[in-house]
C-alpha cells in the first residue's frame, strides 16, 4: 500500500458523532480553530485519551491542518475541532493559527505567496 493511510470507518452517523463530541456542537471551537489552523503534538499519546484524540496526537508529530486531520480520520471538520479544543486546553497539542481574517492580507505575505507559486 503506497496510498495515504486512511481507513474507511466513517459512517458519519449523527449518534456516533454526538458521542465523540459529548454533544458539543463545535460553534465555540470554530471561533478558536480554522480549517487551516496547523496542529502540532506537544506530548505523546496517552492511553487515557479517547481513541480519536490519541490518533490526532499520534499523527501530528509534524504540523498538520485541521482539514487534513479531518480527512485522515474520516470525521467532519467540526467534530475534529471539538476534539482539538480539549487537546489544546490540556496542552497536548499546539495550534499555529492562520493569519487573522483582516480586510485584506498584507503585501509581504502576498509577495511570499507569489514567489512560492512562481517556483512551482
Amino acid at each position: 500500500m503506497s496510498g495515504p493511510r486512511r481507513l474507511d470507518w466513517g459512517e458519519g452517523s449523527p449518534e456516533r458523532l454526538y458521542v465523540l463530541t459529548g454533544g458539543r456542537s463545535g460553534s465555540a471551537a470554530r471561533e478558536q480553530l480554522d480549517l487551516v489552523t496547523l496542529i502540532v503534538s506537544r506530548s505523546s499519546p496517552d492511553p487515557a485519551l479517547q481513541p480519536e484524540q490519541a490518533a490526532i496526537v499520534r499523527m501530528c508529530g509534524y504540523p498538520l491542518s485541521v482539514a487534513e486531520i479531518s480527512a485522515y480520520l474520516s470525521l467532519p471538520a467540526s467534530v475534529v475541532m471539538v476534539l482539538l479544543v480539549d487537546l489544546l486546553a490540556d496542552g497536548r497539542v499546539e495550534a499555529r493559527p492562520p493569519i487573522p481574517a483582516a480586510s485584506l492580507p498584507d503585501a509581504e505575505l502576498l509577495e511570499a505567496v507569489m514567489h512560492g507559486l512562481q517556483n512551482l
Partner: protein
Amino acid sequence: MDYRISDPVPGASPGEPVGPRPQDALPETVTTAVKIVIVGGFGVGKTTMVRAVSEIRPLTTEETMTRAGEGVDHVAGIEDKTETTVAMDFGRISLNERLVLYLFGTPGQERFWFLWNGLFDGALGAVVLVDARRLEVSFDIISRLEDRRMPFVVAVNAFPDAPRHELAELREALDLPDWVPMVDCDARNRTSSRDVLLELTRYLHAMTLAQTETR
C-alpha cells in the same frame, strides 16, 4: 444502522498509523497556513484544478449540518429537517519553509452556502471556476462573493468540446465589473492552474498596495 461500538478507531493503536505518508509531512518549520477557495458548479473542474497543483493527492474533508430543508423537495407532513453532508476536496502547496497554501474546492449552489462561513473566513481570496456552457450557477456565486466582500478572479475552464468564447463576451454575460480579473485556463494543466492562482494573488497584492496608499 451500521454503527458498531467495536469499530476500530483509525490510528488509535501504534500498529496501524493513520495520517500523512512520510513524504507528505510538512516540515516542522512551517508556521503559517493560508487558504484560497475554488468555487464553481458541479463538474466544472474544481477537483481537477486542486489535483493539478497540489503536492499531495487531494484529500476530502466533510461537513455535516442539520437544518430545515430549505430548497429541498419534501412531502407534506414529514418533518422538514435534513442532515446534509458535503464533501470538500482540498490540496496543499508548500510555498516556502514557513508558509503553506491550502486550496479548497467547494460547490457553488445555494444549498451549499452553509459551508461558506468557516471556509471563506480568513481566506486570501477565491477563484470562480466557470464552464462557459453553464453560466447560470456563476451569477449567484459572484453576487454572493461580492456580498461577502471576498476578492475573487474568474477562470474560464477550457473544455475541449465547448465553443470558444471571447472573455469580453463572457464578462458581459456575467455582468462582471471591469476590475475583476478574468482568465482562460485548463484546469488539468499544472502551469495553467498555477497561473490562475498567481493572477488572484497579483490582484490581491495590487488591492492591498492601493489601499495602503490611500491611507
